């Protein structure tokens, strides 16, 4: 549980940590679209420059951002095997009887891996430099215009922020229940299918019972403190964009525009 880099906030207090979450979310969206533009391999150069800049200013190590990729290595290998077996376009590289390997198998796999890797690095930069609550606040503010068409932006943001607030608590709880059941001989790795199902139940049932308990008490506490989802509320945190935000957004747009142009030529 402790090895997950993706989604974890690092309190490094860099210039990127101080940016407005709204601009960071918008930049992430723009960059994600850019990553998927069919601009060829050359199109990744501007994106890589952008990422390098972001990593430099956020003081994140590339190895840290790439850690989240580790569990995906098997998926990548699987992908490559499938592509080798089914791709029938590009130059023929190997031909042993029925077994034929074309060059597109490698280039297509490379595209997917590069895109996924870039997206994961971008997401890691966002979550590592933005507190979960600021992220929620950013999402809420960005969704605000959609309230007119009936989207409950504030309620969505409140739900996300409570979920984020309770993730560490629930992870602790899960660890405790896992340890408690392991002390009662639960073994998730060995045993028959029925034993395994019992073992999983012995974790899930207590976790749900306790989560519902918490939800109940939390609802009471929120109500007692005057929370009413339909009422207007003032906000403690106010978001403010600075020149850094405008510059970063401009940078992202330049990268996007460059790749868009590269698509045409």
């Amino acid at each position: 549980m402790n090895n997950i880099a993706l989604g974890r906030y690092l309190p490094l207090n860099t210039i990127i940590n101080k940016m407005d979450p709204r601009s960071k979310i918008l930049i992430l969206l723009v960059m994600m679209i850019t990553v998927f533009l069919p601009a060829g391999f050359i199109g990744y150069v501007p994106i890589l420059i952008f990422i390098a800049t972001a990593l430099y200013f956020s003081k994140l190590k590339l190895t840290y951002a790439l850690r989240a990729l580790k569990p995906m290595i098997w998926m990548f290998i699987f992908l490559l095997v499938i592509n080798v077996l089914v791709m029938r376009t590009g130059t023929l590289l190997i031909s042993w009887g029925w077994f034929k390997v074309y060059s597109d198998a490698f280039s297509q796999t490379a595209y997917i891996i590069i895109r996924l890797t870039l997206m994961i690095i971008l997401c890691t930069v966002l979550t590592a430099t933005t507190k979960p609550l600021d992220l929620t606040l950013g999402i809420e503010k960005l969704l605000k215009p959609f309230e007119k068409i009936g989207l409950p932006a504030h309620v969505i943001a409140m739900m996300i922020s409570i979920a984020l607030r309770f993730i560490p608590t629930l992870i602790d709880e899960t660890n405790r229940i896992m340890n408690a059941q392991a002390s009662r001989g639960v073994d998730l790795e060995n045993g028959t299918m029925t034993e395994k199902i019992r073992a999983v139940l012995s974790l899930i049932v207590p976790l749900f019972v306790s989560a519902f308990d918490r939800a109940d008490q939390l609802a009471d506490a929120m109500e007692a403190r005057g929370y009413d989802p339909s009422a207007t509320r003032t906000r403690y945190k106010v978001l403010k964009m600075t020149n850094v935000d405008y510059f970063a957004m401009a940078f992202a747009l330049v990268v996007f525009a460059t790749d868009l142009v590269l698509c045409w030529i």
Partner: protein
Amino acid sequence: MEAIELEHLSFSYDGQTDVLKDISLTIPKGSYTAIVGHNGSGKSTLAKLIIGLLEPKSGTIKVLGQTLTDHNLKAVRDHVGIVFQNPDNQFIGSTVADDIAFGLENHCVPTKDMQRIIEESAAKVSMSDYLNAEPTNLSGGQKQRVAIAGILAMSPEIIIFDESTSMLDPQGKASVNEQIRKLNEAKNITILSITHDMEEAAQASNVVVLDQGTIAAIGTPADVFQNDALMSRLRLDLPFGLKAAKAFQAHGIEIDAVMNNAQLVEALCQLK
């Protein structure tokens, strides 16, 4: 005007067995009342009724002179705060400052005033150094003090403590109890504390003993705790100081039944 007046209050969760049976109780403004009794005696139900999280089966609840109804519930809650038992399940914000802000946001306090109020409230519970701390990095006692700060930010007239110290370690307990006493002394806030901790009950001005949904005794801590028949029938613990005083009396040492160690030592010094 009294802080809280309960008249013939009854409550039942399932409609059959009454958890509270015809309770009438008056809690004067500025007083510090401890409600003691075993699990299942109806203590916590009483707290939830007063803050309007539950509705009575019969009887009335008056808070600051107003009878609780669906309509004035929100207005009444502006003046009443409650600290619950589980420190984790009432910490709503992702940092201390955000959590204190939660109540202010709900009550539409202008953003420009919030930082000042948050800092003042945190200072009152000695949590000024932790404004940006996240709940996972705080002890149970600190979380409960943040909960108190969140209530103080609303300048309430009444604070209810619903077994707020029962999940804390002794340090946490001591720091929260200290806080409760300070609040009562300095700000004249009415305190209603539901507790198992007899040391805490001993510092109250009044003690109410609940037993199976009825009031078994009411009076000053000295009156209630010295009611030997009642205390042993309900198998309630005594504050340590009183227990010691009683043991010394039994050995022929002529001292009064005092409530804490400090008073006990003082009394013994006079007998030297």
